[in-house]
């Protein structure tokens, strides 16, 4: 469209600038409060530049042993969950990409069906807690959600697009199916592996319900934030009434934890963008 730039074009830009402000303002507000003196924050929380700059909120969070454990758990589940998820997904995807595999069709169907029907909250809960006794066990974060069928399909579509000649050459050289996958297919899958690794990592880092339902004794950072959120309002009221001048309030702690929990997402965001959008369109290539 080689039209001249008109007034409407500038109006559109203005609209989107407003949208950007509405999107970013709440985040900047949290960031500012997390760096602001806690007692000063109580006066008015509507600002995006710290009025009285301090690091005491973060110092409190990093010193308090209450937050060390959730941080370690969040990081561990993200690392282990991503590693296990990527490895198992890629392996399964390879076997299902092999049209000559006897169970190619059967296995594909039984996996895809689970994308559309599920047992639901109570049966899942009973299986994990009462039958398998995985409650408050670290593996409850890894095993039940190990493979996302959607990710498996992404990898399978990608393998489908690779030249078959490589696999056949390896076969003639005497490689077995595992070796073909590990030495030939896997190295070629790096882009799609990066995509699903990000999916798994973000999913693991952001997960909240599994902790809430199954493992409250293994709190993640997300769960810890939820806990503070539910007590913060009560304690904050006490503070604002009694005029005490403590260095931190539940409110300011909550803001610091919110930032710590958001930071990894913001750091991987440039990569997310690159791979997620590619992944979204890839997903439609099914057969």
């Amino acid at each position: 469209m080689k039209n001249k730039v008109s007034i409407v074009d500038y109006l559109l830009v203005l609209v989107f600038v407003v949208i950007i402000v509405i999107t970013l303002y709440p985040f900047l507000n949290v960031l500012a409060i997390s760096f602001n003196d806690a007692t000063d924050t109580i006066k008015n929380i509507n600002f995006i530049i710290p009025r009285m700059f301090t690091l005491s909120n973060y110092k409190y969070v990093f010193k308090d042993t209450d937050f060390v454990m959730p941080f370690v758990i969040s990081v561990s589940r993200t690392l282990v969950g991503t590693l296990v998820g990527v490895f198992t997904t890629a392996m399964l995807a390879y076997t299902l990409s092999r049209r000559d595999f006897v169970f190619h069709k059967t296995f594909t169907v039984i996996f895809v069906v689970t994308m559309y029907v599920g047992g639901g909250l109570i049966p899942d809960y009973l299986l994990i807690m009462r039958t398998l006794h995985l409650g408050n066990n670290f593996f409850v974060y890894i095993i039940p959600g190990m493979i996302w069928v959607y990710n498996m399909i992404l990898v399978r579509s990608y393998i489908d697009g690779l030249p078959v000649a490589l696999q056949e050459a390896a076969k003639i050289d005497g490689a077995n199916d595992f070796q073909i996958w590990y030495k030939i297919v896997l190295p070629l899958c790096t882009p799609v592996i990066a995509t699903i690794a990000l999916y798994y990592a973000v999913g693991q880092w952001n997960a909240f319900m599994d902790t809430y339902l199954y493992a409250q004794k293994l709190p993640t950072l997300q769960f810890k934030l939820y806990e503070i959120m539910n007590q913060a309002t009560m304690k904050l009221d006490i503070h604002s009434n009694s005029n005490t001048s403590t260095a931190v309030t539940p409110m300011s702690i909550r803001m610091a934890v919110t930032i710590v929990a958001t930071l990894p997402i913001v750091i991987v965001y440039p990569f997310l963008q690159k791979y997620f959008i590619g992944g979204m369109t890839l997903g439609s290539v099914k057969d």
Partner: protein
Amino acid sequence: MSKNRQTTKKKNRLSLGILWRQRYLLAMSIPFVIWLIIFKYIPLWGWTMAFQEVKPATFQKPIFERTFVGLGNFIKAFKDRLFIQTMVNTLGVSIIGITIGTIAAILFAVMLNEVVFLRFKKITQTISYLPHFVSWVIIASIAKNVFNDGGVIDSLFGKNFHLMSTNSVLIWFVIVFIDIWKEVGWNAIIYLSAMAGIDPGLYEAAEIDGANRLQRIWHITLPGIRPTIIVLLIMSIGGALNVGMERQMLLSNPLVEDYTMVLSWFSYKRGIGNSDYGLGTAIGVFQSAVGITLLLIANKIAGLIGEDKLI
């Protein structure tokens, strides 16, 4: 692309010989099939609990030794004092969410598609879906700053709106607003990619014919993304009762719980909270059954008004 593979291989019949030859493939897939059966199919079998009385004491009993109650759990659910309000909340927040959410995403995509400054367009899009990747807990924490009494909005307008502390349908709109704020940029992606698939020749022809911007949007862009809109609408109507417990619970507080309770949460409350596993499962089964019915109805209507059907 998968075609080239099929031509090189002959069709395999199941035999001991082929099982042995494909032992590596079997070893690489069977463990995950077992995983799938345990974690995805056994819970489906759990649906039988909806027709039985299952309490913590009777859970370990074999299925045929439990008391069969027929539709008893469903009747119990419908007679529950929370049921009507829960249904109203679920449908309310869902219908408002689907309507405003769809319109917002389409509007966002159409407007962004019209932006001629490409760099600005890219930056805007990048920022717009940042909240999508942030967890609901974090969103809830941020939302509390904005909507709580004395929060950002209250202090901005110098008035106390009680946005998150009024026990009324107001909270539905607040939740829907937060959801749209989080997801609109992300949901617009699919419309934008549908727009990218529209033949540019159409726009050029329209320009030669002297169509203005609104006419181009109305006659080319919107019809171009129409199939996408219909498919997404059918799917969201099918999921109308599946309002996530996570979002509702995190954005709720004791003051407004009468209006934030939805079916999935209710199922959890009765099933796990009150340890009535049969009742909890029945609510879940009801939710799925209505979901499938709604999906089929929406699909049928789409067919009747001459649109492409999903199934």
